[in-house]
């Protein structure tokens, strides 16, 4: 197990620089000693919150998911029945497929835009660029609920300016809530909300890239675009993949935007996304056992994908060093 953590400062290009903890501890013990339980006491409050609001709820949900309730038989142990049901439930699988497709299109577009923005910000330092940075970040401070409502208004024919645009040239009005455009409309909301945030993160990482690296490339006659693509982007690969993994985690849990959008677009069904399905199983159908199973399975799936990704990423880094 490597000691280096997967999320490190952008400038962590010298792994051997990390001083060995053992020697530091020994040196300290010769001179002064920290109280042996002091460290534990600092971590204890956080640890208790982890137990109370992560370990216990997950354990309880897992336990609930192993039983079922029916009118005839009451609550009884049912083993993995709920999970078998979940993985053969066409509604859930449909929702899962929809979210995966959505992510496959939306995530690369959003991260591509964020990366392009970050590279521009890194190269251009005018007042205009400063304004761009600030404005692009603003949607992050807007609650997803308000963002979805705003776009819902903007998309609608009664309130928004866009739906009727084609009629100016004699075309048909656009229905942003139609089956064929709905995912695009949702994708736009998410892209609007999160591009600036990811851009700032990638921009921060770019700021950590040593200047000598691109100065050398410029002396060798590289154009700014070449410097950006061949020097800067590889230097922040770590930050890009982390932004990607956190975006994947968020996307798999897609809930707020479709839930709000359902008020404009009634075809957003109770199982439109897996998380919406889990919610509706609990609160619309009162099937808490099945809801717990869906919620647990979905969380576990995301967790495994994310952790595997970080682990592979970490190993690759370890080999390079």
């Amino acid at each position, binding site marked *: 197990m490597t000691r280096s953590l997967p999320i490190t*400062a*952008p400038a962590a290009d010298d792994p051997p620089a990390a001083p060995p903890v053992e020697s530091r501890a020994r040196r300290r013990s010769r001179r002064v000693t920290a109280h042996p339980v002091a*460290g534990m006491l600092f971590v204890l409050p956080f*640890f208790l919150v982890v137990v109370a609001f992560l370990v216990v709820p997950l354990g309880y949900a897992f336990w609930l998911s192993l039983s079922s309730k029916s009118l005839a038989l009451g609550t009884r142990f049912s083993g993995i029945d709920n999970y078998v049901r979940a993985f053969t439930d066409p509604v859930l699988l449909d929702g899962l497929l929809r979210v995966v497709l959505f992510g496959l299109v939306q995530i690369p577009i959003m991260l591509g835009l964020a990366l392009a923005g970050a590279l*521009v910000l890194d190269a251009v330092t005018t007042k205009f660029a400063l304004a761009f940075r600030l*404005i*692009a970040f603003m949607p992050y401070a807007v609650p997803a609920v308000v963002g979805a409502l705003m776009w819902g208004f903007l998309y609608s024919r009664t309130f928004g300016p866009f739906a009727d645009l084609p009629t100016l040239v004699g075309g048909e009005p656009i229905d942003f809530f139609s089956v064929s455009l709905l995912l695009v409309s949702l994708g736009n909301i998410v892209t609007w909300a999160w591009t600036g945030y990811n851009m700032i993160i990638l921009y921060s*990482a770019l700021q950590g890239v040593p200047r000598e690296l691109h100065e050398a490339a410029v002396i060798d006659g590289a154009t700014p675009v070449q410097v950006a693509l061949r020097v800067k982007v590889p230097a922040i690969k770590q930050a890009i993949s982390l932004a990607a993994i956190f975006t994947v985690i*968020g996307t798999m849990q897609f809930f707020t935007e479709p839930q709000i959008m359902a008020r404009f677009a009634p075809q957003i069904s109770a199982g439109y996304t897996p998380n919406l399905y*889990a919610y509706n199983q609990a609160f619309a159908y009162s099937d808490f056992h099945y809801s717990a199973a869906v919620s647990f399975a979905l969380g576990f799936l995301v967790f495994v994908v994310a952790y595997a990704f970080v682990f592979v990423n970490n190993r690759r880094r370890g080999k390079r060093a």
Partner: protein
Amino acid sequence: MTVGRANDGTRVDTRLPHLLMGVGILYFLVPLLWVVIAATKSQPDLLDSPALWFAEFNLFENIGLLFREDDGVYGRWLVNTALYSGLSALGATALAAAAGYGLARFQFVGKRLFETALLGMIMVPATALVLPTYLILSEVELVDTMWAVILPSLLSPFGAYLVRVYVAESVPVELIDAARIDRAGELRIFWQIALPMMRPAIVTVFLFTLVATWNNYFLPLVMLSDADLYPLTVGLTTWFNTAQQEAGTRMLFNLVVTGSLLAIVPLIVAFVLLQRFWRSGAAAGALK
């Protein structure tokens, strides 16, 4: 696309980047402009006047109506939101600061294991915990109280992780050892020496947990059923539902819009004012 070679001098063509940034500014700004403009309109103007231009200026009437509707429940939602997000952010930041410091600067049994687990916790999606937490909190009858929103929001593995990385980089061991030689207690060392040096990381964690709770919808939606306890996000959606059911016969759409505007102003102001702090914090240790 033409980009001048950088080594024919400094005359690199930046027109294209500026054009792209201009398009970006429009894209990010138009929805926000729409809310600002729409919040100044009466309900009939909201439906009939051009969407992106002003009609009769009605902002102050709208704000007045907003705070009077349903016996002033909007004011209560605003207070709830500030209370929930303020307390959650304070608590989460305190826990993360202590834990991050403890992990970065002490040795103890089980530390390695806990640090590995911490990474795993970052990967657990917060929304996946909401339904399980609801189930457990309903067992102890805490559901539909403010604690059902605040207590789960105290959990910030990412915050602890960010502080840990930051302390490892910027609080020197030698300084702590020197204080120990001077017989300073561990708590005093943390409070008087380490904490001031950790400020950028702490501001970052505070702001980001504040925003996460202020903007949270799923957790309060699941936990609360008493409208007096709602935060803005849940409250505004219930108004929006009513507005749609009544097809805008009463004046509600303009209240939803004005309420939305007032819900986002405080955070945008906070972020712009505190830019210096959170940017250095975000760059210092990590990414989220």
